[in-house]
């Protein structure tokens, strides 16, 4: 069990090798087989993980490049485990959403490996390596298998995120020259007493902030996202929104917030404003979209905005927050990370199903689907209701806790953010009206309802949504101790 994390990182890579050598029509099967193996490993990791112990677990440490303080250091805490489980859930789901060939599967597996690496690496050099390693496959996947405007969207995506990464790398070099370490744990401890001083601190902060804000994305660094998500093939959109966007949030939790508490406190209100803008403007923009995929993309920004609101409320607010509120907000953010991953991927999956059947995905290209495909409409509605935060489904738990925690700390910002909840509901209600109701559109009259293979994908995911919505304790158990630890760190 000692090398389970390394195994998690390496098995997708091995899978990528196998897939690239497999016969084209076996590629997806092989990739799914490897994912089954990975899922088993992830479950073993979950079983092995001690939810009550603080700090990193199952760490592996090897010297790598001692000269620059880079070492191979991986380990998991509650947040990492949560994201590993999420990745293991979303990636196979994404494979099932696309008819994919060898190249596609290979790149996806490489990306998966990079994701595991990003979520477990505890040393900046290693982390950055994996962080960038996920970028290239994503770029190629959009560029080669994307829809209309794929070149433009892929280039925009790549340049945007790469620029952010470069800024972040420079900042970290600055930190390294000042402090001589790349180790996250050590840096976090140093960060409590102010890592850097003066202009250098602000420069380093700005660089890292830029890199992560682009990745999340946070308003106004989000404009690559609608294009990229809209153009990417369904499976890639699912992974992008389900897991890749979480890398940014993860980065905020792991890097920026512990390292620069002082800077964040000073510009706190501005950060909160950005988060609220993400929430409100993205939901409004989602309402105005005509393209379903673009709408879901904007709602993705909106939902990650809630995560950022919670995080900034905990760290950026000038008010000294009560412990329980910080715990509520952080728990909510972690819940939201997982729930948004599941729900947004499911939504992209459904949009993909509609697109497969119709060839188009404009909101007005459909009509009266309820009469023709009641099952598709029913299950899709569940995903939509989950996304708009209907109680009883998974989305509500995270949003409630985020709002509970943030309201106590930053009441006015939170009150404005509630508009986002409302407009999200409007956007979905409009979409449901346009898609499902009215008389059956002629172009949709030959739609098949859900196939057995599609049901096999949808039903477990939907059941998971219900399970989290009704009895979320099993998820909280994963990260409760981590929440307590971070509360102490940020307090």
């Amino acid at each position: 069990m000692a090398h389970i994390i390394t195994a998690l990182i390496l098995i997708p890579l091995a899978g990528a090798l196998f897939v690239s050598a497999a016969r084209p029509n076996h590629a997806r099967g092989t990739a799914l087989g490897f994912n089954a193996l990975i899922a088993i490993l992830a479950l073993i990791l979950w079983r092995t993980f001690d939810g009550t112990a603080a700090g990193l677990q199952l760490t592996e440490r090897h010297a790598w490049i001692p000269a620059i303080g880079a070492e191979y250091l991986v380990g998991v805490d509650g947040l990492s485990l949560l994201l590993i489980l999420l990745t293991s859930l979303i990636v196979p789901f994404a494979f099932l959403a696309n008819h994919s060939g060898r190249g596609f599967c290979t790149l996806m597996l490489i990306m998966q490996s990079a994701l595991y690496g990003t979520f477990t690496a505890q040393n900046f050099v290693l982390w950055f390596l994996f962080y960038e390693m996920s970028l290239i496959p994503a770029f190629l996947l959009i560029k080669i298998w994307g829809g209309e405007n794929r070149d433009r969207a892929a280039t925009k995506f790549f340049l945007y995120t790469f620029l952010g990464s470069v800024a972040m790398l420079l900042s970290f070099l600055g930190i390294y020259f000042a402090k001589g370490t790349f180790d996250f744990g050590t840096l976090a401890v140093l960060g409590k007493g102010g890592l850097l001083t003066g202009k250098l601190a602000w420069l380093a902060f700005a660089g890292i902030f830029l890199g992560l804000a682009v990745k999340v994305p946070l308003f106004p660094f989000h404009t690559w996202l609608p294009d990229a998500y809209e153009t990417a093939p369904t499976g890639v959109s699912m992974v992008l929104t389900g897991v890749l966007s979480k890398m940014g949030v993860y980065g905020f939790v792991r890097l920026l917030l512990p390292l620069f508490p002082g800077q964040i406190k000073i510009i706190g209100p501005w950060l909160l404003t950005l988060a609220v803008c993400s929430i409100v403007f993205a939901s409004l923009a989602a309402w105005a979209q005509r393209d379903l995929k673009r709408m879901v993309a904007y709602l993705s920004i909106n939902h990650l905005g809630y995560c950022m609101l919670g995080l900034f409320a905990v760290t950026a607010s000038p008010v000294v927050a009560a412990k329980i509120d910080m715990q509520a907000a952080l728990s909510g953010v972690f819940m939201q990370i997982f729930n948004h991953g599941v729900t947004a991927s499911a939504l992209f999956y459904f949009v993909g199903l509609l697109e497969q059947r119709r060839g188009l995905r404009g909101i007005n290209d459909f009509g009266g689907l309820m009469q023709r495909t009641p099952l598709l409409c029913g299950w899709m509605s569940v995903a939509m209701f989950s996304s708009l935060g209907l109680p009883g489904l998974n989305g509500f738990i995270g949003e409630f806790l985020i709002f509970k925690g943030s309201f106590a700390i930053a009441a006015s910002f939170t009150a404005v953010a509630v508009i986002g909840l409302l407009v999200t509901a409007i956007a979905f209600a409009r979409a449901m009206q346009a898609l499902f109701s009215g008389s059956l559109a002629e172009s949709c009259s030959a739609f098949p309802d859900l196939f057995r293979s599609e049901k096999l994908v949808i039903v477990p995911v939907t059941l998971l949504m219900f399970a989290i919505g009704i009895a979320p304790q099993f998820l909280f158990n994963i990260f409760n101790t981590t929440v307590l630890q971070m509360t102490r760190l940020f307090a």
Partner: protein
Amino acid sequence: MTRAIVTNLWLIPAAPLAASLIILSLANSRRSAGAVLAIIGQVVALTLSILAFSLTLQPPGFRAVHNFTWFMFGEQGLRIGWVLDPLAAAMLMMIALVGLCIFIFSIGYMADDKNFTRFFAYLSFFSGAMLGVVIANSLLLLFVCWELVGLASYLLIGFWIEKPSAAAAAKKAFITTRIGDMGFFLGILWLYDRSGTLLFYDDGRGCLENAGLIALGASATFVALLIFCGAVGKSGQFPLHVWLPDAMEGPTPVSALIHAATMVAAGVFLVARVYPLFSLGAINGVTPSLSVVVSIGVITALMASLIAIGQFDIKRILAYSTVSQLGLMMVSLGVGGVAAGMMHLIAHGFFKALLFLGAGSVIHGCDQEHDIRKMGGLRRLMPITFLTYAVGMMALSGMPLFFSGGWTKEEILHATAHWPASRLPYYLMLAGIVLTALYMTRQMIYIFSGNRRAASEHAHESAPVMTMPLIVLASCAIVLSVILTPAWPWLHGYLTGESARFDIAVLIQPTLFVSLALVAAGIALGFAIYRKAAETDPLEDAQPALFRFFENKMWLDELYDRTVIAFTQMAARMSDWTDRNVWDGLVRAFGGMGQIFGSFTTNFDERGINAGVDEATTGTRGIGRVMSAWHSGQIQIYLRAVGVSVLLLLVLYAWLT
């Protein structure tokens, strides 16, 4: 025994919910199975409700709670639970009983619908969620069920989804109520922040108990008003009432169950449930938040009554009467008459369900015609419907003595009359009573008397499966008047936790005569105006402008369209536009700058640096070309060259030495 029942109180909502899930998984063709399952679920809920109700009949002021931790986050747990007290028990009885009647009625009414099973699944789902609202002992659990109720309402309004108007109405209802719910949500957050708990009752630590209320302090007013926002949305109070009349697009049993008897009353129930928040710090029974409740209630009640006079759709008239009655209940709560308001709620649940089912029967008999101008003379054709409808009409108008609505209305009037803040609500309520009697008389005359018109030519009495629930509900409306009689204020005492004494003298009160006179005046006025009612409305002929104003719902929908909705849509378009042009434009400008810089350096490279290098390479290539011509590749030529060179060297050597 008590413990066991309270602990397992969740079974009451769970039974219909489970039924709903099972029905959803049935094939669309298993129609009878669907209906039977739904009714079994409802009967189970009713049986358990009776059991729970019988518990609360014990000493006045019975209250039992069962709290537990839903989940732990960080170091603390989020606790929810259920409560059994007279308020909850009375609501449980009303919902389960009215629900059952409506379920049975639906079997007849929806008999021809192709999505029959789905209809019962939704109805059961609604029933479960609504029962959940009632027993919740946590504001959060209440909110959860509250939203599920909203979802059920959304699904049922849009049940005939192929009708665009139904889908639009469903969307409108969902969004309008959600506007209120967002206020409610903020209220929950605020309350949670201040009191640290969302449990209503928790052995003295709940947010409605002393400790919680003290922690709230001055913010109670705001919390109460925010929670009231939710009630305004759900209960169709001004200014969020616009969805309720549109919701009549749903099947009539839905209108009866959700948009008359139960769900819309949830707002009133909510205010009654968290009443301590409203009345905290009351001086003489008046607080700012309660005053707001009274004003909203009065405005709603009067406005809706006036609009009802100008409507021709049989269900819309009833919808506006619902809105106005809900306003009345709010007024009652606002002036301190919680028990009166709740009693009216329960009585209203029965007789309004009765009226809606009667309307459903009429519509069913008249081939889905909704316009009362096209009906007429149905009295003889549909006698049972007529009689039961008349009972409902009397109860709604507030005819005292034998009809349940009368007593409760009178009690509300009584409470309003003694409100210390102002007498205005009292007088306006009196006007409202006249108006209610007026528009109900108008409706009765149009539908049941006079000549038959277009739609009533082939009208027929409905099947027993539909008339039986009518009879049951009508009997309830009359029997309730016994329970509600002020001479033996048993229900009043039950709700307020006081013991009741029998005192016949209380019957003879000035307000009794006042309300009797007002109702009589209203009915008489109605007869006077509408006696000769025909295709056109007499009032329309007399006062066209005023009538137009009422008929068009005071143009509130248009006003909202032009202001709020237009504004938010513009905001959405603006967001999209700024996203595409401003933010993305900035990015493009940044990229463009890069491109310009790139092309500049390219040019510099080409023209400046590269030119010299190019020259050098060209020269080198030229030399190379010449030299390469000498290299023929013929070894013998190379050898000859070697030979000649050696000879030359020898000659040179010889010459030098």
